[in-house]
């Protein structure tokens, strides 16, 4: 087993060109997968680079496993770093890239060989070892970058938008890979992203940052169920996100089981997963609908939130589904809190991740 460390950031202030971090406080537990979520330009990369020791903070301190490392140079922090665009050394082959950190530790050839075999097996990149980085696909490059960072057994792994440069298919694959790696190695991980679903899928907890400040920290559920500021609510959007288990269903559909509700979905995933449905994809009606929608549930309206032209209606099945309708539909259907209604949506409207 590797050692993994907790991270504490205390009242951190950083000024770097146009990026400013203000009063950052973070507590990441040992073995936790922690996601920092925020829009582009929020200072997320600077935060990671400062934790890695690549920038000196103006004030504040960083503790790794309780040890103050604020003035420790990056090479002695034991932190792995993976950038969005891989940053593989172009003058070295894949094997040379992975062995880079090991050679710096003056390990002997056999030990290096052993570590390389282990990590390339773990990341399924054995067949790429003799290639040059430039000839690899984005997903392969990112696996190599992960291998290079993990092979030196860091106490903490920092991932800077590791999935953003990949095309959607690869992104899904690598996202599951990250989750699997974390289950197997349980290296404390801080992952930065601007993608909410990525954050929900991977994060034990999420910190939302905006303009160099942390605006909310909490479990994924807390973040999207109880956004505690206008910014978080807007950034996260109103969403129906559920965590459940996918089991094979009939007629080519899979079934997402959650809280006793079974939702027909279209996916080739099985096992634990998240499903999300955009509020505008849900149809609300007073009578059961005869339509092509595979999913139809009866529930009770628990909340009606007026947003001007649009109205958010929350229906408790349970779970709670939030749908968006026009003010006119609301008036025509005479919807009010406490009323029993039906919600319907197509299986293909459920995004599984």
């Amino acid at each position: 087993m590797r050692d993994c460390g907790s991270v504490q950031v205390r009242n951190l202030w950083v000024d770097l060109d146009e990026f400013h971090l203000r009063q950052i406080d973070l507590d990441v537990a040992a073995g936790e997968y922690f996601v920092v979520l925020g829009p582009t330009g929020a200072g997320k990369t600077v935060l990671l680079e400062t934790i890695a020791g690549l920038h000196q903070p103006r004030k504040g301190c960083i503790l790794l496993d309780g040890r103050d490392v604020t003035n420790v140079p990056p090479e002695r922090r034991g932190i792995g770093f993976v950038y969005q665009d891989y940053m593989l050394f172009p003058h070295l082959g894949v094997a040379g890239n992975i062995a880079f950190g090991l050679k710096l530790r003056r390990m002997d050839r056999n030990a290096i060989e052993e570590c390389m075999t282990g990590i390339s097996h773990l990341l399924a990149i054995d067949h790429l070892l003799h290639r040059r980085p430039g000839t690899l696909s984005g997903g392969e490059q990112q696996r190599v970058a992960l291998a290079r960072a993990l092979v030196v057994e860091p106490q903490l792994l920092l991932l800077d938008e590791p999935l953003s440069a990949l095309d959607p298919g690869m992104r899904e694959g690598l996202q599951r890979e990250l989750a699997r790696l974390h289950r197997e190695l349980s290296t404390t991980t801080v992952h930065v992203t601007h993608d909410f679903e990525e954050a929900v899928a991977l994060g034990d907890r999420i910190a939302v940052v905006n303009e160099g400040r942390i605006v909310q920290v909490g479990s994924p559920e807390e973040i999207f169920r109880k956004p505690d500021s206008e910014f978080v609510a807007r950034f996260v959007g109103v969403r129906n996100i559920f965590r459940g288990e996918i089991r094979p269903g009939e007629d080519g559909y899979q079934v997402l089981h959650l809280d006793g509700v079974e939702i027909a979905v279209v996916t080739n995933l099985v096992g634990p997963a998240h499903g999300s449905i955009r509020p505008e994809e849900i149809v609300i009606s007073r009578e059961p609908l005869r339509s092509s929608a595979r999913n139809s549930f009866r529930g009770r309206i628990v909340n009606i939130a007026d947003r001007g032209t649009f109205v958010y209606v929350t229906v408790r099945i349970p779970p709670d589904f939030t749908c968006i309708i026009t003010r006119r539909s609301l008036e025509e259907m005479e919807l009010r809190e406490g009323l029993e209604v039906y919600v319907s949506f197509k299986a293909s409207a459920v995004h599984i991740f």
Partner: protein
Amino acid sequence: MKTLFADKTRALFAVLGSLLILFIAWPLLRTVTSSSPAVLWQTLLDEEVRDSIGLTFYASLVATGIAFVCGVPLAYLLARADFPGKWLVEGIIDVPIVVPHSAAGIALLMVLGRRTLLGQAFGLFGLKFVSAAPGIVAAMLFVSLSFLVNAAREGFEAVDPRLERVARTLGASPWRAFWRVSFPLAWRSILSGIILMWARGLSEFGAVVILAYHPMVAPVLLYERFESFGLRYSRPVATLMILICLATFAALRLTAHSSPPRSGGFGDN
């Protein structure tokens, strides 16, 4: 649309451009073909000629070596660091390109001459500049270091600083990150700067002639033969020098282009 004569504009540009190419190539070709191989061989056997060519190559090599040791670190700083007065340093690096080289020679004489403080200090170690090889090295260094420093700086600028950062997180000290990542990645630019600087040093006349007429570097020898004996006698020496320089230059460029690939930047093919 890569065709040279695709339209009238391009045809005109091609004509204008070829005038310049002809202007360079014609005199060189004329000189090179003017002396028979026998005469050239004879010139090569002339000890004075051989000594001066040897001295020229050697002095330029030493100058390039000095510029490499001090100039590559400077280039790295200019590419990576911000500091007050950086613009001034960059300006100073470029100054030798714009001052007349004879003026550069005079300026060097003012600090390295026999009666100057520096001249006397070096004299204590038996190093004299006026009419001596170190003077030639100093003159060559002065007028050609800009080429190496600028090429190396461009090379370092083309290396993503995040590559160094990754190296740091993997356990490399700044020193090792430089040698294992930045330097190899900038190497092709640096090499191309080395070649340029060395070639520029070989051909230096103005600054060298003021600091050290003797011992004679090849350009000075050529000048002396022309002054004393006229065109006929200086021609074979000129031919020989042009041939040797062209050959070395071509050989070095070829080696530089066949060195391992690297990402982006100056001198990439």
